[in-house]
């Protein structure tokens, strides 16, 4: 099973589904002949794709809109907010190469504000799977929901075996008393390895794979805050409006406080390069993460 195959099965088994793209076919290559008229490629015209998705949804369709993250979100933002958001239509945004996955494309292609912008829209749900298996476990529930949804796609594989997915629930990978990592997306794997390094230093380390950022698993956040001396949020996103903000809002709402260390991007775009070099340069390899935790280095 992979993303393309899951789409193929979903669309063929349920005629409400259509696939839309703004000519971003890298992982959909085999779908046009298979899906026929229910594969709709509008060309390089993201806002028109979203407007048209709203029209299709008004007629009972569930459009899966697949495009490069920055253009899906930023180019089409007002169409997402106004046409999909206000009408609360079940349009499913499939966001390709968000966060560090844009590698050497440069700032124009860096979707590192996507979580902030998407969760700001009333009724929009936001999901960030950790790896391909996690994504495949999550997508059926997300697509079956009546809500508009934003998903950071990821096709990288890890050896981690995930528990079944439920909207609004995080995955508790392990619990720890010294610190708990809160993480989503591709940095999950780096965090797993960082946790091992820290355990070798004698620390008790928990890991939570957030999965569902909106609705968020408040119970998991609050429990970790009570159990651990420190929470460490790790995200390939700007500090503003991402997981760190979500944790802060959750704690405030419940009149709690915690020692929270944020590993995120601060007021700048990341240095373009191939992924391993980006992780090293920006301090997000497992070794960097472990060192930053040990030395309390946030920036």
């Amino acid at each position, binding site marked *: 099973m992979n993303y393309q195959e899951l789409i193929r099965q979903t669309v063929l088994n349920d005629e409400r589904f259509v696939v839309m793209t703004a*000519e971003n076919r890298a992982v959909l290559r085999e779908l046009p002949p298979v899906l026929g008229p229910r594969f709709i490629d509008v060309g390089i015209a993201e806002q028109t794709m979203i407007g048209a998705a709203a029209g299709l949804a008004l007629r009972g369709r569930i459009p899966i809109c697949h495009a490069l993250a920055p253009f899906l979100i930023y180019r089409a933002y007002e169409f997402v907010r106004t046409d999909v958001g206000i009408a609360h239509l079940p349009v499913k945004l499939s966001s390709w190469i968000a966060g560090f996955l844009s*590698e050497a494309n440069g700032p124009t292609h860096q979707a590192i504000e996507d979580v902030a912008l998407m969760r700001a829209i009333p009724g929009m749900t936001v999901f960030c799977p950790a790896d391909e298996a996690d994504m495949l476990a999550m997508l059926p529930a997300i697509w079956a929901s009546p809500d508009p949804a934003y998903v950071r796609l990821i096709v990288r594989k890890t050896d981690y075996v995930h528990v079944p997915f439920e909207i609004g629930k995080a995955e508790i990978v392990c619990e720890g008393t010294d610190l708990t990592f809160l993480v989503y997306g591709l940095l999950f794997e780096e965090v797993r390895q960082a946790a091992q390094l820290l355990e070798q230093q004698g620390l008790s380390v928990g890991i939570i794979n957030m999965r569902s950022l909106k609705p968020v698993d408040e119970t998991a956040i609050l429990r970790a805050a009570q159990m651990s001396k420190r929470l460490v949020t790790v995200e390939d996103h700007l500090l503003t409006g991402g997981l760190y903000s979500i944790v802060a809002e959750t704690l405030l709402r419940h009149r709690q406080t915690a020692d929270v260390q944020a590993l995120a991007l601060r007021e700048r775009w990341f240095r373009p390069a191939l992924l391993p070099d980006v992780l090293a340069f920006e301090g997000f390899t497992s070794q960097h993460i472990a060192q930053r935790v040990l030395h309390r280095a946030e920036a």
Partner: protein
Amino acid sequence: MNSANPTHSTAAADLSAMALRVREHILCLSTDGGCFTGASLSCADLFVFLYTRFLRVGPDRWSDPQRDYLLLSKGHDVPALYGTFVEMGWLPAERLRHHLKTTDHIYWHPNRNIPGVEFHSGSLGHLPAVGLGIALDIRLRGGANRVVVVTGDGELDEGSVWEALLVASAYRLDNLVFVVDRNHFQANVRTEELIPLEPLAAKFEAFGCAVARIDGHSFEQMELAFGRLPFEAGKPSVIIADTVRGKGVPSIEARADRWFCNLTAAEVEALIQELRGEAQAQLTSETLTVR
């Protein structure tokens, strides 16, 4: 190195030789992570012509408000731009060896850390509007500089391109010229098989532009077209340059799957030989559509 001198007569043979070297730079960047090879090869001749024969630009006037402007709106063809800058003597060739590395700013889209890049791009359909703003200010100040915006043809799908044309036409900006690298492909498919653009000249004319259509690999036709700008007083100009994606390297010419190439070092060598007409390359790297 002084700025390009448009009045200096550069023989067509010299331009061809320079374009060949630019294409070698493009091929050399098509490994270790790769680049948008096919889309860069199609506009190599255009850049060589524009920087040697038309634009009044260069290191001695990068900040001169009287200079001409080239805005690269289809930013993914930046290897052709950097290759041209190297051949103009404006960019040290060794900087290209830092392609995709955190040690420099040479990556898949242009940015102003590289002298001569007027504006960053990568998101399509932005620089027609930015160019419009620059042209408006030049008009306000009574300047004689020209603004050239290079777009792709797939890029014309973006509605913002047409909004900019409407406004440029409304403001009668004849100091603005849009050059369309009409290589007949967008990322993964032929334009006419997805969102047909033809009749393209008629579309631009209907938006109030004066249009010429040329062979984008003919320096002679470029000379004639750019030599008579503006085509019509009070109208923005459009030059549709018909080109071939992958031009110069038959193995990857006019192929949807060679838009982006991440080749082995041996394949790059073989393609350079093919470019020089020495031997045809055999490619085994996975065909790539990164979008």
